[in-house]
């Protein structure tokens, strides 16, 4: 079994409103899986179903090959988007309480908490009340509590909101470290830059339905459309002639010529599997400085897919 979590045609309705419509996903082990989608698409509902906070009306969820059962909560760590702590409770006591609710022994939880607190250099907060902490500080505590019981599956819902860039980086590094140590991670967000950096797999949810999923690199490959970018250092020939010649032969989308460097930058739409031909042609005109296929960013894929499925509300 190489999927940590499988959902099969999961459907959830609230009254007449369908929050999830037959969503099937496979989340591979030991990877970071991006759950993407605009606000209100149904990501949070799906995550709550995985956490058994709500239950699907139809469909099934399997965790590590078994049907999802209440005892699985101790194998899942969840950092919700709407997260907080008891304001008047002390940090250490509270972290201990939350760890014990996940099924950890008190002494073991304490030991690991101390370790994490030292790692984040926040050991001195143990006896502080949460209301004395800043938002970013509280988020660190929440992160520790989420990962403390060493779950097999971690679910982060917008984990970087509320962090300054430095702390966001610390958290990002920790997430990568956790993945390297064998944890599977579901990462829900609508901020695409972090998706590019972290996720190997993604699923796109829109209007309660899954409209796209798979390995990010595969999706990108599928979404590229033979647009290439090239830079050419022209020798001997007049630039005007070069541009004209190119425009006659190929479908040039944009071009600009740098006089001082005698360099032509352009992008071109090619028929599929015809890149070698243009390369040899360009070689005859001068030195190729750069020639590469434009890979769409996750953000572009996101917007493009959603727009093709109808108006983005």
């Amino acid at each position, binding site marked *: 079994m190489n999927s940590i979590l499988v959902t099969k045609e999961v459907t959830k309705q609230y*009254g007449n409103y369908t929050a999830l419509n037959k969503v099937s996903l496979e989340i591979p082990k030991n990877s970071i899986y991006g759950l993407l989608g605009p606000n209100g698409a149904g990501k949070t509902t799906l995550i709550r179903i995985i956490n058994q906070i709500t239950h699907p009306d139809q469909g099934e969820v399997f965790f590590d090959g078994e049907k999802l059962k209440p005892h699985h*909560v101790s194998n899942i760590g969840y950092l*919700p988007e*709407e*997260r907080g702590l008891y304001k008047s409770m002390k940090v250490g006591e509270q972290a201990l309480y939350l760890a014990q*609710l996940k099924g950890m022994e008190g002494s073991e939880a304490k030991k690991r908490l101390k370790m994490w607190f030292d790692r984040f250099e926040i050991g001195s907060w143990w006896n502080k009340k949460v209301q004395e902490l800043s938002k970013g500080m509280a988020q660190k505590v929440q992160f520790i509590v989420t990962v403390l019981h060493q779950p097999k599956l971690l679910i982060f819902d917008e984990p970087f909101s509320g962090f300054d860039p430095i702390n966001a980086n610390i958290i990002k590094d920790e997430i990568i470290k956790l993945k390297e140590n064998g944890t599977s991670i579901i990462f829900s967000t609508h901020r695409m830059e972090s998706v590019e950096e972290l996720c190997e797999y993604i699923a796109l949810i829109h209007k309660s339905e899954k409209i796209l999923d798979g390995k990010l690199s595969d999706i990108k490959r599928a979404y590229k459309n033979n647009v290439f970018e090239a830079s050419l250092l022209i020798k001997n020939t007049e630039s005007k002639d070069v541009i004209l010649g190119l425009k006659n032969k190929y479908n040039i989308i944009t071009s600009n010529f740098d006089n001082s460097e005698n360099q032509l930058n352009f992008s071109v739409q090619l028929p599929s599997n015809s890149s070698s031909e243009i390369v040899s042609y360009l070689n005859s005109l001068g030195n190729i400085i750069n020639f590469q296929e434009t890979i769409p960013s996750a953000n572009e894929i996101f917007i493009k897919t959603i727009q093709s499925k109808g108006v983005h509300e």
Partner: protein
Amino acid sequence: MNKLKLIIKREYLAKVRNKSFVVMTFLSPILMVGMVVLIAYLTKVNNDEKKVIAVLNESNFFSNEFLSTETTSYINFKNTSLEAAKDSAISLEYHGLLYIPHKSNLKKVSQNTVFYTKESSSLETLSVLEGVFQDRLREENLRELGVSPKEYASINSTFAINTETFGGEKSIKGVNEIKAIIGGAFGYLIMMFIIIYGGFVMRSVIEEKTSRIIEVIISSVKPFQLMLGKIIGTSLAGITQFVIWVVSGLILMLVAFAIFGIDPNILVEGQNVMPGVDTSISTEGEMFEVYLKEVFKLPWLTLIFFFIVYFLLGYLIYSSIYAAIGAAVDNETDTQQFIFPVILPLMLAIYVGFFSVFSNPHGPIAVGFSLFPLTSPIVMLMRLPSGIGEEGVALWQLILSILILILTFIAIVWFAAKIYRIGILMYGKKPSYKEIFKWLKY
């Protein structure tokens, strides 16, 4: 189960360590005892003050009928005019001046008698004065009818009916009222506990919602476990507070009475003068003893057992409603519209109890409200001091009442848990009743 214990522990500690809770726990008995001591002290001072009434008697019908008592003394003015008497009564700061004019017969004298005071006089003082005139008038009437005072005394007899229960036990008038008061105290205790600690449960739910910790917690435990743990933890804190109140209150009371030298009976005496109380028992002390005996004869074990049963069920029903309200709203100001319908049956139970159950503990209204699940915990406890069986609450009523209560308990907790489960994840809006009703179908 282990998780439930953790939740109960946290809720209990969070409540008990709360500063305002601690202050309330230790301040309330001091305030309460202070108030009681103050009342007792003022009563004592009030009783110590003696009223002086001047009597200007110009008639031939009164001579020494006005006898000084512990609280009132009379001073006879002689050979002065009414105006002069008024002036001296004022300058001597007397309570009042009783002017009895000279007339041909007693009737006319009585009709023209005036009692002058600086401020309007108390009913008590007036009734004493009126009593003197009534006695004198009766005496005069009897004389006219030709009955001697001796003869009158011989026919004047008091009578108190002997009451017995069908079971053959002697009972005393007023005992029903005492039973009702004891039952009422139990009912009142339940109501107060529900309102105070139900409110605590509600605020605690709201706090979890506004601090946004709720989702973290229910990803580890079931919402129902959390709700149950919260209710139990808060009630345990409440019971702790109650025990501290009762124990420290009693100790403080004894200490305070010892320091101020107040006889605790001073508070009891006033209450014994109840309408319909057996007047054949002469002294207050004796009467107090008889009532005390009656109180000890109450079915205390039954009472306490059913108090616990009704308390638990009633409190669980109401506090789960409170928890659901807390889950449905976003902040405390939104709770008003939902709380009123919750408090309504409680108030109804208390009022019905005091007006209907006291006068007729086993009448149709009392029976009805002691079966209706939202009022039964209070009303049934008001009826129970008269025992179970022929003389008291019919056994079938008791069983039916508890059965209905248990069924209601299951239904309400189920509904409340449902609303709670949905409500805790709804942020940023104030739901209507219609929406909450829709949640039940999710």
